[in-house]
């Protein structure tokens, strides 16, 4: 059996001392988990090592930590792989998660951060009126759709890894917003609009996410919290016309329209179009657009100076050769009756007759 070196970040709140490191050597098969490594050290060498754990199977969500700097469940990280990532002769470094206060060793205060934020999104179903005599009859797809959010085990890995939360600790954050989607996307809930309005208008709500993918990368259950946040945004703006705080909807719309028209991004037009429905010249601007544009002038000037944007380019943008093919994609998508949600939860593969949404898009459009 290979021997692995674990380096754990320890903290004893009763000692009055700062955090320190302890190293342990453990013999374990490479496919066993980092958690098993920590438990072996605890069993055989030092019973005072603190870590929450229970199921060993990535179901209970207790053991999220940072392993070699990356947030993960200790129970579904193979110790051999962790050692490889640590590199030749380096110990596997295990630390408590970020963004939450440490209680002891690898144990963080989930109540103070994670659960408080979950409470914030009114995390229970609010149906309209009395329940039916039998079950609510709802589309089968809708239940499968929100099961991606239901698959969340509240481990807090995404919260620990969230860069927006690091910058703004008040951000509601990926886990709680994914939980919110579980209700917004649930046809049995009667408060869809109110929930979306509440989350969109909260200065630390829907639009604080910067789309960095950190939560998607660390989630052990493929909940993809950021995708749930994006779907909340699409519903808020697309279905209810709720104005978002930083005009992301206008930006996205301008982006899509420009690509449809030119095949490539007409950068000089992006900013004005983001704030003006047609263009600035036509004067159909969003409230606050002039202020936003003035604030963005330095960016425009930098673009002019570097040659990225020129007055000529600003007025004229070449079309992509074969742009009609791009247009054809747009036509096809526009022709679909329902908005196609990219639900990564169910991805069919191989030669099945029934295939998932992702595969369907891949087949038709590529």
């Amino acid at each position, binding site marked *: 059996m290979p021997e692995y070196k674990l380096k754990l970040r320890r903290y004893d709140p009763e000692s009055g001392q700062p955090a320190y490191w302890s190293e342990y050597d453990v013999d374990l098969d490479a*496919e066993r988990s980092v958690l098993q490594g920590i438990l072996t050290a605890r069993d*055989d060498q030092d019973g005072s090592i603190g870590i929450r754990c229970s199921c060993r199977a990535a179901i209970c*969500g207790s053991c999220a930590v940072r392993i070699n700097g990356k947030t993960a469940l200790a129970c579904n990280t193979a110790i051999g792989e962790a050692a490889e990532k640590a590199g030749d002769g380096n110990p596997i470094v295990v630390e408590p998660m970020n963004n939450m206060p440490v209680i002891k060793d690898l144990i963080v205060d989930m109540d103070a951060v994670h659960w408080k934020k979950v409470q914030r999104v009114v995390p229970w179903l609010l149906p309209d009126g009395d329940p039916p005599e039998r079950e609510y009859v709802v589309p089968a797809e809708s239940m499968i759709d929100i099961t991606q959010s239901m698959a969340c085990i509240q481990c807090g890995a995404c919260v620990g890894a969230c860069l927006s939360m690091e910058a703004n600790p008040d951000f509601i954050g990926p886990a709680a917003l994914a939980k919110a989607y579980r209700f917004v996307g649930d046809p049995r809930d009667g408060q869809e609009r109110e929930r979306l309005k509440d989350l969109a208008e909260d200065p630390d709500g829907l639009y604080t996410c910067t789309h960095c993918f950190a939560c998607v990368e660390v989630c052990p259950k493929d909940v993809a919290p950021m995708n749930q946040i994006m779907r909340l945004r699409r519903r808020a703006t697309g279905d209810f016309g709720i104005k978002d705080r930083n005009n992301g909807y206008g930006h996205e719309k301008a982006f899509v329209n420009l690509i449809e028209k030119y095949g490539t991004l007409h950068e000089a037009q992006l900013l004005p179009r983001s704030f003006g429905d047609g263009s600035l010249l036509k004067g159909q601007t969003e409230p606050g657009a002039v202020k936003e544009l003035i604030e963005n002038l330095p960016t425009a000037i930098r673009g002019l100076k570097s040659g990225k944007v020129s007055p000529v380019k600003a007025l004229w943008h070449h079309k992509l050769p074969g742009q009609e093919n791009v247009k054809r994609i747009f036509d096809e998508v526009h022709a679909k009756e329902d908005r196609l949600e990219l639900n990564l939860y169910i991805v069919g593969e191989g030669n099945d007759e029934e295939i998932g949404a992702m595969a369907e898009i891949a087949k038709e459009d590529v």
Partner: protein
Amino acid sequence: MPQHDVLVIGAGLAGQRAALAAAEGGASVGIISKVHPVRSHSNAAQGGINAALNPEDSWESHAFDTVKGSDYLGDQDAIEIMCREAPDEILHLEHLGVTFHRNEQGKLGTRAFGGASAARTYYVADITGQAILHVLYEQLMKYSDQVDRYEEWFTTALVKDESGRIAGAVTRNIRDGSMELFTAKTVILATGGNGQIFNPSTNALICTGDGIAQAYRAGATLMDMEMIQYHPTTLAGIGLLITEGARGEGAHLYNAQGERFMERYAPNKMELASRDVVSRAEQTEINEGRGFPDGTVALDITVVPKQRIHEALREIVMVGRDFAGVDITREPIHIKPGNHYVMGGIKTNVDGETDVPGLYAAGECACVSVHGGNRLGANSLLDTLIFGRRSGAHAARVAKGMSMPTPTREELGRERELLDGIVKRDRTGRRVSEIKAEMGAVMDKHCAVFRDEEGLKVALETVKRLREEAKTVAIDDKGTVFNQDVLGALELQYMLDNAECIVTGAIERKESRGAQFRTDFPERNDEEWIKHINLSAGDDGTPEISYSEVTMTQWEPQERKY
């Protein structure tokens, strides 16, 4: 000093359901759990929950399947109640927001499960337990005015008043190490199973039989403790569970010679015979040399369409990938029978009442008994919810008519001393982990799928010795904040109490029924053994044996064939 009409200990499905029902009944409720409620092991129930909700199905059919599955050791009055009340419970959960799978008409859809004569298992992909647990926790958050939650509090002992009635519990706040006496008119134990006695086990590390041992020490009767379920499909080595839902979706079992061996053991139900039957078949194949060199047989899920696997068996795709390095959509996975569930537990009536006045039990720690000698898949979630609800409602009604007890603080002092003693003890005894490992190995060797008197006696002697050794274990952690080390020492003692009762029951039952297969008594013996084995703590600390009758209503024992 916290006071509650109803104090629930344990916050898995049974505990949360009991707390909500008690609150609905107007009681002031406290719920204590040694882990955050959503970390509870109810999470691990993957496949689903049974109910005869379909108009073509009937509760009688569900009840008969359960009686037959129990090998006629289940109490038929309790089984009737469970199966009758199942449909309404499913609808209640659906109304609360559980995201049950729908059929094409948008109505609740079902899947097939072992030992059942109809497809009556309702499910959320293969995360059914998790989905229900998280939805109940949503409700606890919603009703936080009525239900006080004590998350990460560890119960060390139950407290009675002078009349012998339950009066509360002694607990330790894990976060700061403080000890507290909780006063309560009624106490509901919902502390789950004891799988950690065995190694390997599908059970989480927290499943250490705490409540069963505490009730036993407080004078409650334990029943049918020998009935330990080995689940047919667990990963070799670490013991993680592959849901029965896989076979429900159509997966096959093969031995190393490529034979679909269930043809020989259960020609009608094949892979969907009840769990004891399938586990014995697998173990027979392995013992007779037709298994793989790693002591396993193969589960082939590739026969299920890939889209369906991704939709309905997502969790085990991950288990295969992360814990066995196998893509179950492309290749078979090696599995074997592994410790999974205790059918026995604290003896209760159909309202959850135990032999100790005011003390209730529900869920896996209880034995009503609806599972008898063998639990059917997808009946455990149902058991937790039906009897959790009934216990909570009954306890709330009882509490209404009485005043708050006034237990002395003696017990608190005693428990505090006990814990301090363990923390301060010099390092001379064995480590907790050593004793646990020895217990786990001996139980898995002698008290598993096949048992005989010789092996069981070895197990009993070992457990008795380990109980003595556990009294002097030494620990490393001298602190108060999250001292998991000292709690581990307590859990070890609970587990050993459980283990002694399991082995004692297994030696006593001189026949083969349900999960208990005695190679020295290979036949079911209805003449002598249609009876429950009851155990209570004797004065010298060893279990005293007595019997109670199995309640029969409408189903006479028949030969059991699948």
